């Protein structure tokens, strides 16, 4: 079903912002973070104005309300991702979720000589924790290359890399290329060789339905802020069997059963990994965000984003000097379109686009190994989401052409 984009836009106060230079904001940096609908902002404000209290710690009314809201949010969010509250561990975002797998699962279950498979497409958040673990425990880290023509993973190399692997860590969708990996095939192949699978769904979750129990991955890392939720919260979805194999990551209050001067015992399940005061307002905000998103079919969001991303890609290809890194025409691609101009340096181009009111990302996108594989130091990236319009991308292309004609 076609989305009513104008009605959707009216839920986002920030989209009507006029920038200091008098230009209307056109927000194309959604792969970095999405904007937040008013209901999310209101839910968080209501918590602070009406029932701000610490959760799980007291018996007074406010504490009960805060605890109920925190756990209701867990229920809504886990349901949105096709699983149960017991399988959802709140984290600060996808980065912490991946670190939780590294510190809380891999450190307890992998040993010297074991193999972890990554890809060249990974965000630094899905590389550095494994490099650290490798240094500490003598674990071998293998990287699956990308095909520079199609910008897709080399699945033949993948098949070879996963032999004897204990853990396969793959991004669902590349934050640079917008390419969606064949995650179903990756999970199946990994399971066949007895490897566990961690999916980084930071980019995938805003664009398609993540159905944790049906997918069969062992771990899924998600950030709320890229899917209409607030910053500072995300989650690790973990299979029940894997949770029982995990040990403490961060320690302190809330995650303990008993503490004596001789030592401590720990809670079971997700509680063991949520130490300290929970991110209560953020969880409530994320709950409101998934409730807001639930009024739409995720495939409608994907189709809308794909339509404007593929149009943008086709129009960019007509501009002399512009090269696209990725395949926005591919029906599975998300809304990220990375590009470079052959003579206008990426930072300059971003400045000049910003002068027109267009917010795009520039840099290595925390994916330096991918930049190395592509043979570039950085790219510009326009990334679209549910509230972006055809008119916006038309005006973007028009401004981009103007810049290229004037500054190349």
């Amino acid at each position: 079903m076609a989305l009513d984009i104008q009605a959707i836009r009216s839920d986002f106060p920030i989209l009507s912002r006029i920038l200091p230079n008098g230009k209307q904001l056109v927000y194309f940096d959604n792969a970095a973070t999405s904007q937040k609908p008013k209901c999310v902002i209101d839910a968080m404000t209501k918590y602070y104005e009406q029932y701000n209290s610490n959760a799980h710690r007291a018996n007074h009314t406010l504490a009960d309300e805060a605890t109920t809201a925190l756990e209701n949010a867990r229920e809504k969010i886990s349901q949105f991702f096709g699983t149960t509250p017991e399988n959802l561990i709140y984290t600060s975002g996808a980065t912490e979720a991946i670190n939780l797998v590294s510190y809380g699962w891999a450190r307890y279950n992998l040993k010297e000589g074991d193999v972890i498979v990554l890809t060249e497409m990974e965000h630094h958040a899905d590389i550095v924790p494994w490099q650290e673990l490798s240094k500490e425990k003598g674990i071998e880290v293998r990287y699956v290359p990308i095909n520079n023509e199609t910008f897709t993973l080399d699945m033949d190399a993948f098949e070879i890399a996963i032999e004897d692997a204990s853990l396969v860590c793959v991004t669902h969708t590349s934050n640079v290329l917008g390419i969606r990996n064949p995650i179903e095939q990756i999970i199946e192949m990994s399971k066949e060789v007895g490897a566990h699978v961690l999916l980084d769904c930071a980019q995938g979750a805003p664009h398609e339905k993540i159905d944790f129990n049906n997918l069969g991955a062992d771990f899924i890392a998600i950030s709320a802020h890229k899917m209409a939720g607030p910053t500072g919260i995300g989650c690790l979805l973990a299979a029940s069997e894997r949770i029982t194999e995990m040990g403490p990551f961060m320690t302190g209050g809330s995650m303990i059963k008993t503490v004596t001067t001789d030592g401590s015992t720990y809670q079971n399940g997700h509680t063991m990994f949520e130490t300290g005061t929970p991110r209560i307002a953020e969880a409530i905000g994320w709950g409101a965000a998934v409730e807001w998103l639930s009024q739409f079919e995720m495939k409608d969001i994907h189709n809308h984003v794909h339509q404007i991303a593929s149009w943008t890609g086709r129009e960019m290809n007509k501009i002399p000097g512009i090269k696209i890194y990725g395949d926005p025409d591919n029906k599975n691609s998300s809304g990220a379109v990375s590009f470079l101009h052959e003579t206008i340096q990426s930072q300059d181009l971003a400045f000049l686009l910003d002068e027109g009111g267009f917010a795009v990302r520039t840099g290595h996108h925390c994916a330096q190994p991918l930049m190395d594989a592509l043979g570039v130091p950085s790219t510009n990236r326009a990334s679209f989401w549910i509230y972006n319009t055809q008119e916006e991308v038309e005006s973007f292309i028009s401004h981009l052409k103007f810049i290229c004609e004037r500054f190349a």
Partner: protein
Amino acid sequence: MEDASWPSHLDSIVEEFRDCFDSMERYELLFEYAKKHPSPLSLDEWNEENQVLGCQSRAHVKCSLDENGLFLLRAGADAQIVQGLMAITAIAVNGQSAIEVSKLSPKYVEEMGLKSSLTPSRANGFLNMFKRVVSEAEILSEV
């Protein structure tokens, strides 16, 4: 050179930018400055020691005293906007004493209508390079 100001020989350049019709014309002029004043540091002089760290582009700064003991800035960046601003900064500081350069503020960039170039979040942009120049001038003034 006075505090929070710029040397008088920069006035005509500041004026030239101020007179631009709009921001795009201003950036066009800045690109021209970058082209007219390419990096005096050759690429093989771009090294880790003189690199201004950041994430968006490469930028390098080398400061020294010339044979007369006066400040000499040589800077290179792969972004034309940063290169243009550094070329203008070199015009401002070269031939001044290190102590004068250490007191320089980037206000002239604001006056040129390029305030957005001074935003701290513009990683590895002009502001980072400018801070490096001022800090090296402080060190050189103590020599």
